[in-house]
């Protein structure tokens, strides 16, 4: 099921993200999905996130689909050249996986195989363009595809609270021109800043899902503030988490914060995208508090 169709219906689209395991046993992941993620519209499957080698995104998407979920296939350009990317797009389409999120990918050196060759043959923009070509029955080499061409819901990402927001907006525009039909944002903690971004981005007329992370504790927030691109967590939130450590540890404070951010931004987005970071169990509660359940 293409998420673009949900947007078209005017639905507020909720997606969550799962990270494949480093190994071939995904029973636990599927069980957790069945327990906590039945209320979401789609599930993103990360692609060797942070350059750490894991079970493949496409295979996990297929398993999720077989289990009745609607997967969004995340594709980075770090590990595959254009031949492999195109081929994997066709594989996805053949399996009926028709939501694809295009990302450039973290640099190889940041992960657990620092000596690997970084590919970056294509990037997030040209990958979107490539999907468009395949939909027209053509490939990048100029050859025709056999038979019915695939179709995709073509997703992309944007980082509204980046300190380079101008560059991000230009890139967003380029992604749209290259075919992006929906966006998921980097995690948002500063509603005001997000809304400012939205006021500029809404002119593009492309649906945006607000990125959400349930904050676990002050340490995590400080770490993300210092190290993760596009993340800006206001001091007030960190104070809230510090106030009652037990509540924070149980995820109560974090869920409240995340739900509040969703409520504050709800009129300025067309959906939310929840990055769980292991707290899949918090999702049902979060959706309820945010008024989305």
């Amino acid at each position, binding site marked *: 099921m293409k998420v673009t169709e949900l947007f078209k219906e005017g639905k507020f689209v909720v997606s969550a993200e799962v990270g494949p395991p480093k190994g071939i046993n995904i029973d636990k992941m599927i069980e957790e999905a069945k327990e906590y993620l039945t209320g979401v519209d789609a599930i993103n499957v990360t692609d060797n996130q942070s350059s750490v080698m894991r079970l493949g995104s496409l295979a996990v998407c297929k398993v999720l689909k077989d289990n009745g979920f609607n997967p969004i296939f995340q594709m980075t350009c770090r590990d595959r050249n254009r031949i492999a990317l195109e081929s994997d797009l066709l594989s996805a389409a053949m399996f009926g996986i028709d939501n694809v999120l295009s990302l450039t990918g973290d640099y*190889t*050196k940041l992960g657990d195989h*620092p*000596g*690997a*060759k*970084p590919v970056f043959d294509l990037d997030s923009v040209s990958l979107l363009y490539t999907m468009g070509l395949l939909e027209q029955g053509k490939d990048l080499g100029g050859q025709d595809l056999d038979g019915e061409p695939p179709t995709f819901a073509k997703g992309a990402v944007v980082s509204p609270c980046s300190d380079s927001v101008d560059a991000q907006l230009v890139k967003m525009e380029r992604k749209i021109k290259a075919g992006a039909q929906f966006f998921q944002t980097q995690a948002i903690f500063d509603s005001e800043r997000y809304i400012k971004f939205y006021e500029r981005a809404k002119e593009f007329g492309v649906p945006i899902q607000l990125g959400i992370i349930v904050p676990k504790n002050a340490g995590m927030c400080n770490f993300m503030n210092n190290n993760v691109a596009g993340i800006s967590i206001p001091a007030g939130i960190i104070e809230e988490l510090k106030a009652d450590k037990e509540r924070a540890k149980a995820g109560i404070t974090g869920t409240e914060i995340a739900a509040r951010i969703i409520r504050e931004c709800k009129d300025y987005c067309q959906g939310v995208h929840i990055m769980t970071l292991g707290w899949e169990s918090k999702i049902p509660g979060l959706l309820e508090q945010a008024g989305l359940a």
Partner: protein
Amino acid sequence: MDYTKYVLKDNEELASLLEDKDNIFVISCNKCFKEFESVEETDGDDFAAFAKEQGKNVTGITKVDFLCNQLLTAKKLEGIIPEGTEYIAVCSCGLGIQIVAEMEDLPVIAASNSLNYIGHHGMALTQKTCGACAQCYLNLTGGICPIVDCSKSLLNGQCGGAKNGKCEVDPKKDCAWEKIYQRLEAQGRQKDFLDQPVQLRDYAKSNFKVVNDFVKEIRDSRLTGYNGGVHPTENKELAENIPLAKFPEPEIVVIPTSMHAGAPATPVVKVGDTVKVGQLIAEQNGFISAPVHSSVSGTVIAIEPRPHSKGTDVDAIVIQNDKQNTIDDSVKPAKPLEELTADEIVEIVKDKGITGMGGAGFPTYVKLKPGKPIDAVLLNGCECEPYLTADHRVLLEQADDVIYGLKAIIKAVGAPKGIIVIEDNKPDAIELMEAKVADDETLEVATVRTKYPQGAEKMLIKNVMKRMVPSGGLPADVGAVVANVSTAVAISDAIQKGMPLVERAVSVTGDFMAKPGNFMVKIGTDVQSIIDYCGGITREGATVKMGGLMMGAVLENTNVPVIKGTNGIIAVNTEYTEANECIKCGRCQDVCPMELAPLNFYKFAKQNDAKALLEKNIMDCFECGCCQYICSSKIPLVMWIKAGKQAAREVK
């Protein structure tokens, strides 16, 4: 061969680039890494013609050698872009385009594409390439590069794609792994290859940070004080810690009448005359000239042409040494410095035959009458030539004389201060001199980076006083007088002892000098006798030079005398080589401290084009030899420059 780095974009692309633009100024790089056929390349003209065809107004065109040389490019582009220009089109590799884009406020059109060669080439134009993988595999592959020579950069052996020993990607290309097997087989090394572990390339090896820091560092060193310069291996450790020793009395001395710039002196003694130490034996002949004095006591046995370090025979006064060291009556201390007038100091310097002792041998008294206000006297203790250590020893062992001499110069030229300039490779001398001048407000010590030719007059002035001696000008034009530390000692001796310049400090050193040392040597002493005294030369065919590695004169004949400008005798490696054609690597321009373009001197000197040579300011070159040192085609550039200057002088 031609490894030029750019071609113009095709007309279709250029046309679309120009579509909405007009009033274009064209900057074109004269290309690099190709045989030096023409001085100016035509790409800029081709582009300008195309732009005009498209109905565009071209506001001007300029062609620049090595556009990527930021410093020189900035100077060349200053103020040349006419009013009304809206765009700058650059025909260059990406380096040049980015340099211009950074420098100018106008939008820049890249009119060319950089060419992409597989692998990098060395400095010579050679087919051999290197992928710069930072993990050299040549030790496993018999010296054939699998990264570049194999289309797939395979590391663990041949793929299945080779057909008849040719590559599947390019059937004209030999399969690299086929060649590797053959080479290893011929050397009996297949087993080594079989036994090696599986090779996995580490793509994280290229450490951008290291490289970037490193690039900053070299740029810093290249540009500090003045543009360019080079860093030959110093090799000072061979002799720098050996104290100055008195060289034994020579049997005879051969004292040339020409040991200075300008006219030879006129002998005033005859064969058979008895002479004493310090006695005038040849008098000054004209304004730019210097008198000559005997360095020994004894008998004049000949006055005739004798071999000279400059390669020709020169009139010389030959004296049999009686080894009595009887001092001439004229050798008497002058009044104390405090009582001497400036003119009196100049007179003493003139009468005692003092000439520049750093090598060029310009009569010192002329410098001491600058006729212009002088802001500072720079005393050159850089000794930037590799190997040489004589000035270093003089600074350490004759520090008081150095300072006395400097004060005399300061007084003679009426300068408010004197600066002793020492390279940072002589920390002991810097420390000693700083202590010596600590209580004197008119004297200071300046430490400069070790870089050749730091001790050149114009470089010293630029570096220490931040002033540029104008083209064709003299140090005095910018308020400076420069003298060598040994010259200061000679002035001190002349005033305090009344002794003319008859002896000097000489480094006898080099990789192939058996027992290096530093000596006080009498002028006229035979070089070969000094070499013998130092144990001889340890490698047959080594080159002996009088002076330093960079500017010293090669001695084909070592039976020549030590003269006033002899600061060293060195035995070094012989360069067995032949000149290749210039490949426009651009290094000569990069290292030229005078910001000249030596490759053009070579080109124009060959064509005997005096006008072009003068336009390129050949007369500003002081023959430091940096360009020849760095030349990747081993062209004897200094020889060509000398020939070029000769041609230019004839026109002038």
